[in-house]
């Protein structure tokens, strides 16, 4: 009997190695769990009936191109689009023997923080199906929590891996920008998009990161890892120095329950021998959001220009080329991509460029410097991952600014290109709270060690209470 709710990826690999189960058994067990739970949760947009490898299964967010498997990025405009090539990360997980279980739900073009913006309907949170799983990678995060995948890949532009992991009670890593190839990832904002692993614990996340990371000749912005990925061990934080940004204390958006859980986790860290100090990120919390909402939509407005109905996906005919493009994009894109295309087009327009996009890039440079200085003398910056726990479906759907504020704490380090690890650190009103650890460029190994030690001490049960 394979208990998909509890089985970690590492344990599943052990079962395979000891030949206690076959790859086909594992694949079937997860498909069976999907069959039982996914009508309710809607984590998957489509599943693969047969295992594609001799290893354990994996779920891939639907922004990751998979050869021969429809890839829509949660958008109607890509309905029926089947890539003729694998994204580099898809090729790497397949190369490691992993077999693709299916493609998971996402906000359209990864634009959102709740997975409600998917053209194919929202995903529900396994802890409380009346609530969102976070987003944009809600499908992968919910699938891992509900035992519908041992692990999976998401994409993170401003928090789309870290925030849903926090809201679903699992571990998610947004890697250092440039360590994981973006080749074949349906682009949202190129200078921010990063693929990251989601799993039940830090060791699984580290293992999956080791499979996907490293320079890719097909992505010029990638770099070789300066040191190999290490699977974390040990339970001490002696000599580790953690920094809490001074500004966190004043952020009213952080719910009391989240704050309480965060404070308790800092105590746990101290008990493990860590020193907890303060750092200063004034520009990050004041200007991070506006900066992000200029840079990301600007790049998105350009990245989404290719969906014109000429070569693939949906085409809505018109009397002229221009009319065909207009109608295709009008019917193909949902409200959030349209909103961001308009924002971004405006930010790049002649006469506004300097005031908006240019200014945002200068702020970004300041953010990078500020984070470097904040990390001086510390191993990691710690904050809650999300200011709130999972919120009810529909709660913020009509208020884009409230939705954007979900990523208040994750966005600054994304702009700075730094790695961030979210681990579950407790419950608030029965819903998971996430702790965000931000490290130096290429500092993943350090984050894994700290996250692993905390995880052991916290003893969070990743299985949603209602499914135990």
């Amino acid at each position: 009997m394979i208990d998909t709710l509890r089985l970690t990826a590492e344990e599943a690999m052990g079962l395979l190695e000891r030949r206690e189960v076959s790859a086909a058994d594992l694949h079937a067990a997860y498909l069976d769990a999907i069959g039982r739970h996914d009508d309710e949760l809607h984590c998957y947009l489509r599943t693969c009936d047969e295992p594609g490898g001799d290893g354990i299964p994996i779920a891939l967010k639907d922004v990751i191109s998979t050869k021969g498997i429809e890839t829509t990025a949660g958008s109607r405009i890509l309905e029926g689009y089947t890539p003729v090539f694998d994204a580099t990360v898809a090729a790497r997980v397949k190369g490691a023997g992993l077999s693709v279980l299916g493609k998971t739900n996402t906000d359209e073009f990864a634009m959102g923080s709740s997975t409600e913006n998917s053209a194919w309907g929202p995903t529900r949170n396994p802890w409380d199906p009346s609530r969102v799983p976070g987003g944009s990678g809600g499908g992968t995060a919910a699938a891992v929590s509900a035992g519908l995948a041992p692990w999976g890949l998401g994409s993170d532009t401003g928090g789309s891996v870290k925030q849903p992991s926090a809201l679903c009670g699992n571990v998610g890593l947004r890697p250092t920008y440039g360590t994981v190839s973006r080749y074949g990832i349906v682009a949202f904002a190129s200078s921010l998009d990063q693929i990251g692993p989601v799993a039940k614990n830090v060791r699984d996340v580290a293992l999956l990161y080791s499979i996907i990371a490293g320079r890719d000749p097909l992505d010029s912005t990638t770099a070789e890892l300066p040191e190999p990925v290490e699977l974390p061990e040990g339970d001490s934080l002696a000599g580790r120095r953690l920094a809490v940004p001074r500004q966190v204390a004043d952020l009213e958006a952080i719910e009391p329950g989240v704050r309480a859980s965060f404070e308790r986790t800092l105590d746990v860290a101290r008990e493990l021998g860590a020193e907890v100090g303060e750092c200063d990120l004034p520009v990050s919390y004041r200007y991070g959001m506006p900066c992000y909402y200029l840079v990301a939509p600007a790049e998105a407005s350009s990245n989404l220009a290719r969906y014109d109905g000429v070569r693939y996906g949906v085409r809505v005919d018109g009397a002229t080329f221009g009319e065909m493009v207009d109608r295709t994009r009008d019917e193909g894109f949902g409200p959030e991509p349209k909103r961001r295309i308009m924002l971004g087009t405006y930010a790049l327009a002649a006469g506004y460029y300097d005031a908006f996009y240019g200014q945002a890039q200068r702020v970004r440079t300041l953010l990078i410097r500020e984070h470097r200085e904040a990390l001086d003398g510390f191993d990691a910056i710690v904050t809650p991952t999300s200011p709130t726990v999972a919120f009810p479906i529909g709660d913020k759907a009509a208020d884009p600014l409230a939705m954007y504020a979900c990523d208040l704490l994750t966005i600054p380090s994304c702009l700075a290109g730094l790695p961030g690890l979210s681990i579950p650190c407790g419950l608030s009103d029965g819903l998971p709270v996430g702790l965000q650890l931000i490290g130096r460029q290429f500092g993943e190994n350090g984050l894994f060690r700290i996250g692993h030690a905390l995880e052991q001490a916290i003893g969070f049960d990743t299985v949603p209470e209602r499914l135990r």
Partner: protein
Amino acid sequence: MSAWEPVIGLEIHAQLKTRTKMFCRCPVGYGAGENTQTCPVCLGFPGALPVMNRRAIEWTIKLGLALECQIAGQAVFARKNYFYPDLPKGYQISQYDLPSCINGKMLLPSAEGDHMIGIVRAHLEEDAAKTVHVGGRTGRIGGAESSLVDYNRGGTPLVEIVTAPDLRSADEAKRFLQLLRQTIVELGISDAEMEKGTLRVDANVSVRPVGSDELRTRTEIKNMNSFNFIARGIDAEVERQIGVWESGGEVEQQTYDFDAATGALTARRSKEEADDYRYFPEPDLVPVEPPAELVDALRAALPESPAARIRRIEPALDLERATVLVTGGLDKLWDDSVAAGAGEVAAANVIANALVGAGVDPAAVSPRELARLVEARERIPRTAFDEAVAELGDPAFSADPYLAQEAVSDTSELEPIIQRILDENPGQVAAYRGGKEGLLGFFVGQVMKETQGKANPRVVSDLVRGKLNV
């Protein structure tokens, strides 16, 4: 009425003949079936990313060095955003505010002395795909029933060279283009053939009163596919603008298509010019930072420029002959054949006229054999000379059998023939003696015909003149 001076700047696009495209590994080339030289990158599939072609960047730097440009320590590709079916990503990747090469110049040897033409920039970008618009009258997208796109060309590396408005006549623009084309071809980076579209030129034209320094409103002329058409297009536009100013009007900023068949300039809809391309740095690429050693090595390997060669060989010939030789890629053969003993002007004439006329590849010609032929050309029969020139490209060519055919210079053999021809044409003889000296050629031609080209024309000419001038 005041005198007007044209002010002309050019924008030149040259397709680089790299093996693969600018940002993917699809082959560059012609003649393949439609849409067979494509991949996810050059078709703009979701998630496909560009990777720079190192050779294209080196070649752009090489061109920049040949044009005496400063080579940027950091060049940046940007996205130029607009919708068109030949642009699969919805943007073109092009260097914009930080191009690889800036502030260059090219020497244009002119009859009045050296003229330096400023090169504002030379940058690298990707070419668009090819569209065919079916139906409609204009062959353009507006009014077409449907459009077909061949993405084979899409993504071909393209360098754009922008000159300063330093050219002062259509003829000068044409000579500049000939010289620039030769420079590009000799660098081995492009075939630069206008007929094939591997070289494309747009001209920016304005006029101003002679003696003035002002820059008046300029117009752009597109769609000219030969150097002669460019010259004609510029002339037509200069004339139009002078007419506008002199009739009290105002020249408006506008883009025109030049129709070589009718000589007409047709204005494009001005709306097309109002585009905002929303340039921003391409986040999928990193800046181009060529190592100083690479730039130095490329500079050291530059060949002598065509302009410098014109200046070098001009004293032995004249500007026009020197220009023809250099821009025709003929000056090396001229150099070598002169070194092998040929007379300078005679060799230039034979190479530029007879050799080119016979379609012989100058690179295949032995300078030594050519020099022997040039020296003997008045001694041997015209027919033998022409035959020999036509055979010069043959690697086994020897001048010997042709030189053996000495032309008939023996006066005792020629005199009776000449006398007969004079006797048969009394009218012409009288006319010549009456002052129509041009008829000398007629008599010489008759003798050459009679002797089947074997007579030495100079000897014949002397003999005829002697007899007529009695």
